[in-house]
């Protein structure tokens, strides 16, 4: 088992464990399983951060060429993670609060927290401060798709809302209803 790391075209360094076929099998042994789950979660979150992916679906494992193709499948060893194993991994992520189910009462898609909502809140506030947008009303759209790329580009609205909710608890932000939806005003914290 001479395993080696592998770099994807997008510049992501895959760990050597990703080239081990047993990595893609649900291990009946509890301790082995727990260990591998840990490695998987780390891999998923690292990759999500690298690619700025927020949503992981069960189906992603079976879609060649998708966003998650590079880690959920390994063409070099002819292995892919079975959907059942992936959904158990997602459940583990949710338990560890590293993800939440995207919609309540379903388990086939998760919203990944490769930054915790608290971290997102800090990022959001520092971004607002850095760009001098304190005390101005910003729409969610302006935050998730700013003219100048920011750490918050492409952030999903539910995640953004949770971050703002955290900020508003410490009186650093306020949600304001505007004509075409919702807006937020940041205050100096």
């Amino acid at each position, binding site marked *: 088992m001479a395993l080696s*790391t592998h770099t994807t075209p997008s510049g992501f360094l895959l*760990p050597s464990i*990703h080239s081990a076929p047993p990595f893609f099998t649900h291990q*009946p042994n509890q*301790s*082995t399983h727990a260990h*591998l789950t840990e490695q998987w979660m780390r891999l998923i979150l*690292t990759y999500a951060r690298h690619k700025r992916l927020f949503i992981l679906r069960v189906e992603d494992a079976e879609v060649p060429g998708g966003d998650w193709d590079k880690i959920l499948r390994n063409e070099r060893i002819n292995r892919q993670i079975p959907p059942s194993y992936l959904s158990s991994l997602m459940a583990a992520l949710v338990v560890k609060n590293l993800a939440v189910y995207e919609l309540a009462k379903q388990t086939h898609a998760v919203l990944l927290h490769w930054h915790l909502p608290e971290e997102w809140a800090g990022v959001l506030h520092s971004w607002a401060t850095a760009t001098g947008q304190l005390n101005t009303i910003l729409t969610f759209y302006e935050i998730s798709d700013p003219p100048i790329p920011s750490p918050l580009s492409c952030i999903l609205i539910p995640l953004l809302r949770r971050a703002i909710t955290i900020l508003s608890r410490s009186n650093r932000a306020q949600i304001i209803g505007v004509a075409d939806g919702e807006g937020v005003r940041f205050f100096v914290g």
Partner: protein
Amino acid sequence: MALRRYTASIDGTIPVPALLYDDEELLASQDGVGIYDGLQKAPDYQTGSVHVSTHRLFFVHSQNPSSYSFTMDLLHVTRTNYYAGLFKSSPKVSLFLDADTALPLITISGQRTEIFESWECEVCSHRNPPGLSPTAARICTLCGVPRSVSAGSTVSDASSQTQSLFSSIPESSTTSLSSSSSPGPPSPSTNSESDGIGCPACTFLNHPSLRVCEICTTPLPNVEHAGSLRAKSAPPTRAVSPVGDNTDPANLLIKLSFRKGGDKPFYNVLRRALRSQAWEGKRIGHNARSRTSSLAVASPNYGPTPVAMRPSGIDGIMRNVEASAHITQTDLNDALKDLEGLMMKAKDLVHLAGELNEKLTASSTTTTTSTLASPLSTTSFPSNSGTQLTSLFSTTTLVPSTEPEEAKFIRSSLAQLGLQMSNAPVTLDMIRDERRWVDELARELARVLQGSPDDIPGQKSAGIMKERGIVGLDEVWGGWNRARGVALIPPSTFLQVLPHLPAYTSPPIRSRVFKSGLSVLHVPPYTHASFTARIVGYLAMSGVMTTSQIAHEENITIGLADEMIAAIEADGVICRDDERSAIKGGGSGSASEVRWSRNLFLEYIWDGQL
């Protein structure tokens, strides 16, 4: 004249045994024989050989066998006479023939072929094979029902009228009808043409073309039936008999002239054949033939007696079945009685063998150790008391050094008799104490598993686990009980014995229960630890192995390998790679099988992107 009337020509180039019927047997042969037809020499039959069978007499001409050979049924012979010969006249045997059984004056070959066909019984649908003698062929070999006439009738309309004459007599056959309808002898049955159909109600003879009786309008049976009725109402009489000239005694005589001797033995054989009357038991057909010439004269003992002697039909079958069942029952009873007697004797025999074996064991111990070693050194008889040994010691000291071989011989003889005492099953009544009983059983089981230490070379008692290190408990139990043969061990006792097994086995055999409930007995190399070590070793060498590869490597069954690997997996030493997570189909060719590799993940340190 007698020759013509009583014999049928055959092709003498065919060897006589080939001419015989299936139920016929050749009794004697003699060559250098001439034939007298009546009182005169028959010029064409002067040199040849005669053969007598149970049914027939054959004459085969020595120069011209194809033209001047004949056969004659022995049933024609009424009596015989022996003439010893005088000076130049050869010994002769005269055969006086029965005038009533003369053959018709036509060639018989056509009828023969018909007899030799196979035919299907109308009653039981059994297809009777050809080749039986004409008499035997008239009766179904399976159910004993006579062959029906209509089944075999292939004759013309004219003769079917005459045939009907005899259809009321079931044993008549086609051979009979052609004889009576033949143009040769003046047949009285010519009036059958003019006679009509007898009415079943009023016996009026109607014109054959009528369907109902002219007098009483009773529906008339069809032609065949009508014939039989007519036969009943007007049976043929003595006047039927064909020609008068056969009453001449000269025409009823054939003489065999023995020119080259051999007359006496041949005559004896011939007389015996005539006396045994092999054709008689089945002569129903000939009976009918005799009636073609003179039905009224046919002697009464030709009648139904053969039929009665031979049970036929369903009744006969039933009686056969009953008889065979009775015979089976009797045989079984006898056999059981014999068996009981044998068992009585067997006890003595076992006792004797036991004593003999004790002596042998004692003597071998004394000769090998030459001192009184502990009697327990031989596993077979720990119960040997010291007194026995000492008493035997004096006798065995005289035995020369060749003694062990003799002992071996005696033991192997005992073993061949099934009395090998070292293998004698231990039973509870042999040992009173239960704890000791279990110990003895464990000792015995150890012998079954590993073979006894004092093994007999000629005998194959290698033991179940001689070759294999791990065996299923069920197989051991079955094998043990098979080895015991008597006083079988119930599973509960078997399980009781298992914990004691390691004390009596070397290497110690232990039992192990897998997670699934499968129980096995195994030697130390198959303990969990050493098996794990071995598997890890394999995997370190080859990287990945399937279950079947491991099973092959370990020479155990796949099911067993599965269990053992699962136990290792539970330790987390190895991990699995399920082919179901392959991207393409069944993965790398093999069917969906789990591949095992060492579990290197526990020491894994993240080396990917941070």
